[in-house]
């Protein structure tokens, strides 16, 4: 099946913050353009794969409270990333599996019960305007489409390059008899978990390039240190509260290039983990860089939840 040219999504409920995201604007950092793109890239890719989209097709990234969309024409959608209740009208639908929508039906993406950001892929991709090669909303620079608003209509594109991953009857039956384990076979999320009582999420971190700006005591404490994710956190970075990491020297670091996952430490000592919309250069020292899998976890860490740094093999030169 191909995505209908007339397919569109009408925003019934925009949620706290829902943005269009793809793989971002790589290759422009030297001009001051942030990478942007899905904060949890792996979840974005899984959502696209479920509906048979190309990896770079744009998805919708929700924040904490989900969103609701009414379909014009027919659509195949899938919700990945933060687990949440999914329903079509009043009928529960699987999370983490493709779902067919008929004309006029409303997809309800519920509040995140485990994590922060859910990704809604629609077969064909969200066809928002391309800016500098990407449809991503960059909240630091203001590039890309505006966050979703109630009543807005999103066109659906033609970036499907495979088939939706509908479970076969056999797979569906075994998933049900196995107790409905989540995954590609899909599962309805029916119970709320309490994220605040969950153990701290581990963020593996490679020390450097400015570890020498910190006291030996700060570096020793960093390994295993727990921090609370503050409500100041956003797509730019995870702002943490906990043990301050004191500088070992005075002065200013001349501005230098910043990477995704960089743990930048301002004079307050309270670290910031850079996420997708991070600035391209910065003048505070980076004590270490969170690994790819750590960035995915950090992007799903809700305000009030806890994270713990774990110094990983530096694989030094």
């Amino acid at each position, binding site marked *: 099946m191909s995505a209908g040219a007339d397919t569109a999504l009408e925003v019934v409920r925009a949620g706290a913050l829902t943005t269009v995201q793809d793989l971002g604007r*790589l*290759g*422009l*950092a*030297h*001009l*001051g*353009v942030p990478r942007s793109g899905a904060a949890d890239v792996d979840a974005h890719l899984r959502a696209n794969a479920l509906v048979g989209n190309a990896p770079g097709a744009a998805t919708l990234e929700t924040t904490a409270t989900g969103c609701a969309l009414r379909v014009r024409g027919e659509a195949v959608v899938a919700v990945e990333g933060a687990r949440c209740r999914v329903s079509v009208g009043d009928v529960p639908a699987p999370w983490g599996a493709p779902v067919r929508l008929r004309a006029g039906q409303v997809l309800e993406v519920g509040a995140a019960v485990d994590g922060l950001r859910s990704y809604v892929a629609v077969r064909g991709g969200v066809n928002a305007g391309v*800016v*500098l090669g990407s449809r991503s909303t960059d909240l630091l*620079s203001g*590039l890309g489409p505006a966050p979703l608003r109630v009543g807005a209509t999103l066109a659906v594109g033609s970036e499907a390059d495979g088939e939706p991953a509908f479970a076969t009857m056999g797979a569906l039956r075994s998933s049900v008899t196995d107790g409905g384990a989540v995954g590609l076979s899909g599962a309805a999320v029916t119970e709320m978990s309490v994220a605040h009582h969950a153990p701290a999420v581990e963020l593996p971190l*490679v020390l*450097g*390039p400015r570890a020498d700006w910190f006291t030996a005591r700060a570096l020793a404490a960093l390994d295993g240190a727990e921090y609370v994710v503050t409500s100041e956190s956003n797509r730019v970075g995870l702002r943490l509260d906990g043990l301050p990491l004191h500088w070992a020297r005075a002065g200013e670091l*001349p*501005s*230098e*290039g*910043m*990477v995704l*996952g*960089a743990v930048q430490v301002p004079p307050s000592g309270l670290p910031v983990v850079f996420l997708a919309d991070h*600035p*391209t*250069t*910065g003048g505070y020292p*980076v004590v*270490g*860089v*969170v*690994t*790819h899998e750590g960035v995915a976890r950090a992007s799903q860490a809700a305000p009030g939840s806890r994270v713990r740094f774990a110094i990983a093999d*530096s*694989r*030094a*030169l």
Partner: protein
Amino acid sequence: MSTREVRIAPVGDDALLIEADSGAAIAPWAAHARALHDDGALHVTDIVPGARTVLLDGVGGPQARDDLAAEVAAWDPRAEEATGGPLVEIGVTFDGPDLRSVAELWQVPVDAVPGLVCGAELTVAFCGFAPGFAYLTGMGRTVPRLETPRTRVPAGAVGLAGEFAGVYPRESPGGWRIIGTAVDAVLWDATRAEPALLAPGTRVRFVEAGHCA
């Protein structure tokens, strides 16, 4: 002339930082990396110059990163590589609210500031803060930032801070001392083939378009 004295450090699993002791010393490395990339001989996602550094990001994982570090250590960029950028002239009306404070800091008459600014041969060292915001070196004089940043600086404002000069590509908050307004220069246009007027390595000369001090 050779400029070999740099340090090379890993940045996480997927990037390298090349660091020199000064902006002048790192510029040839930034230009060399960009030239190699344009020739298809350097496979990284981003080359991000800083004040004294060049970040090579998206190198392809730890093994590729370590291999690249060994390659970079063998680079021998020549100082001349940093001087071949295109020249952009920007007309400036010297009508900024901080013209007088800059004159006082430089201990010159107010009407001497435009000549000093326009006489400098400037180069874009790096970009940051906002898309198309270029940090220009070569002024040869410094001024401290404003103690209290302005909540609103108009697009086109020409400012000075530290050793740098810059032009605000769009309205934003800012702590630079504003000495004038760029005339007819579009610093940033995302729909252009080259969205930033002032990419790293670009040489810049300010030209006096008027004087209302």
